[in-house]
Each structure stands twice: as structure tokens, then as C-alpha cells.
């Protein structure tokens, strides 16, 4: 099994819309690959059909078996990370080896507060803990 690592600078996992999402990926591949991709995407979990949307990606073709590379994305304006009782929307960074599809994932939060937005009774949007003090 290949070794795959993905990390953000200062281990940040919360990003305001428009903020830079940057970090490094490392791979040590068991066998040669066609490409390695870093993906920024969101997906849903909960009751019903899952939605997934790839928002940005960077691709490294014909990668060496062992390498460390930087990646840099801009956090989009939305959708925000949120959770209700019926659905959660989660953001993640993923390092994917192609064509084997070996994957390493890092979950992140995209929201104005740096925290997941919770939908409460009546599914009204409430942004919690606005001043949580996390440097964003």
C-alpha cells in the first residue's frame, strides 16, 4: 500500500470564503502511477442521495514514486460547511493516485466563522460561535 499524506500549513482546518487553502502533499508509491491529484471538494451525508462537487484540483502527471509537492486553492464563497438533522455538507481535501484511486482525505471547514454552521429547529441558519478566536 502506498503512503499518502496531506496537510495544510499550520495544520489549519478552518477557512473563511476567499481564504487561501495551502499545504503540502507527500506520496510514496508502491507502483508507478499515471498521475496524482489534489482535490478540493464538498460532499453531503445524511438521509437520501449523496451529492459531491469537485471545486478545484491540481494534477501532477507522471509522478515520481516518491515526492512532496505544494498545493494552493482559494476557499470558495460557498456553500458553507453545515449540519442539520437531514443533511450535512462537508468540505475536504483529497490526495488521489490515478488510476489506482488510492486516497488520503483531510476534512476541512469552510464558513465565515470557521465553524460548521448548524441548522436548528425549523432548519433556520444560525452561525455559531462567531468569535471563537480561531485565527482564520
Amino acid at each position, binding site marked *: 500500500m502506498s503512503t499518502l499524506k496531506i496537510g495544510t500549513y499550520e495544520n489549519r482546518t478552518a477557512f473563511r470564503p476567499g481564504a487561501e487553502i495551502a499545504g503540502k502533499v507527500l506520496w510514496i508509491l508502491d507502483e508507478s502511477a499515471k498521475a496524482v491529484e489534489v482535490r478540493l471538494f464538498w460532499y453531503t*451525508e*445524511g*438521509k*437520501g*442521495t*449523496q451529492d459531491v462537487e469537485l471545486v478545484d484540483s491540481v494534477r501532477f502527471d507522471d509522478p515520481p514514486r516518491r515526492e512532496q509537492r505544494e498545493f494552493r486553492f482559494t476557499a470558495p464563497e460557498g456553500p458553507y460547511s453545515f*449540519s*442539520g*438533522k*437531514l*443533511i*450535512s455538507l*462537508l468540505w475536504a481535501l483529497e490526495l488521489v493516485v490515478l488510476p489506482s484511486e488510492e486516497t488520503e482525505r483531510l476534512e476541512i471547514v469552510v464558513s465565515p466563522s470557521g465553524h*460548521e454552521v*448548524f*441548522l*436548528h429547529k425549523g432548519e433556520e441558519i444560525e452561525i*455559531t460561535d462567531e468569535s471563537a478566536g480561531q485565527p482564520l
Partner: protein
Amino acid sequence: MRARDNPFRTERVHQVRYRLLDGTWGEVMRRLRELDYRAAIVGPDGSGKTTLLEDLAPRLAKLGFTTRSLFLNDRKRTLGPTERGEFFARLGANDVILFDGADLMGRLAWARFKRRTRGAAGLIVTSHRSGLLPTLIECRTTPELLDDIVVQILGDGAGLGELPHRLFEKHQGNLRDALRELYDMYSATAPATDAR
């Protein structure tokens, strides 16, 4: 409870794969070969037809086939001209078509579809009724099966007593609906913020 923490969220339930109540996978694949890879998986709603169809795909791939998937459901009751055109344009002699919900096609459309897929290596469909193709398996469920699935999802020793049996009866064996009700029950256990 947050949707992402609900043990009965769709993504978690989808990790539960089809369990054969009768026979073995070897027997299923042997019968499929005898039927020349043209067969139907038949059963009522929530009996595991789609899951079984999905679980055939890697087994067919191991035999060297390429699988091509199509589906119809209540929200998508026909194959659009673009989808149909692209599908047939790329259909090869090594392809086995996995068609979920084939019984939603009209009779004439189904007859045409069957004719146009003659050149493919196989056509396996799911259907609520028998008759579209020779039956490979009739899917059925039992209260014990629902019990086993609940234990698999919640972990060993975390059964829910008689509840799965009651839900099985309430939903007349439809495991999908029973598991959705369990989702609702769990989602009501605590406010979303408690899970933070």
C-alpha cells in the same frame, strides 16, 4: 444528532453489502453463466436488488468483462436520447450492461432495448416483476436479516431488541424504509449541536 453522525446515514447503509440468503456467490455466478449473462434480479422495493446488482460488478470485472451501468427510477423514468445515443455508441462486445429499474421502461422501448443490446456480452437487470429476462435471483428479506444489518451498522452487541422486527413488519419487509425510519429515530435523539 447531526446528519453526519447518524449511524443510519445513507453513506453508512450503503457500506452494507448484499447477503445471499440462499446459496453461494459461486452458485450465483455459475447460474449467470448458464443464462449467458442475460438475467433479471427480481424482488419488491427494499429487498436489495440494486445492492446485488452493484455487487455483481466487481465479480464480472474479475471475469474480464467491462460493466456498463444504467438506471431508471421514479424520478427518471426514461433514458433520454442523448444518454441512449452515447450509451449505444460506446457499447462493446465485452460489455455487460447492469440496468437497474428496467421494468420502468415501456414494453416497446424494452423490446427495442433488448434488440440493440444483443451484441453485448450480457444484460442483467433489476425488476419488481419477473418476465423481462430469465430470473437469476428473487430477492427476499427476513426480520433476522434486518437485525443483522442493524448490528453491523451499530457494532457488535448494539442491537435494538425487538425494534428491527417491529420495523420489518411495519414496512412489510422493505429494509430501505425500515433503515430510513431508524435514521429518523436517531436524528431525533439529540439536538444537532450536541454532537459537536
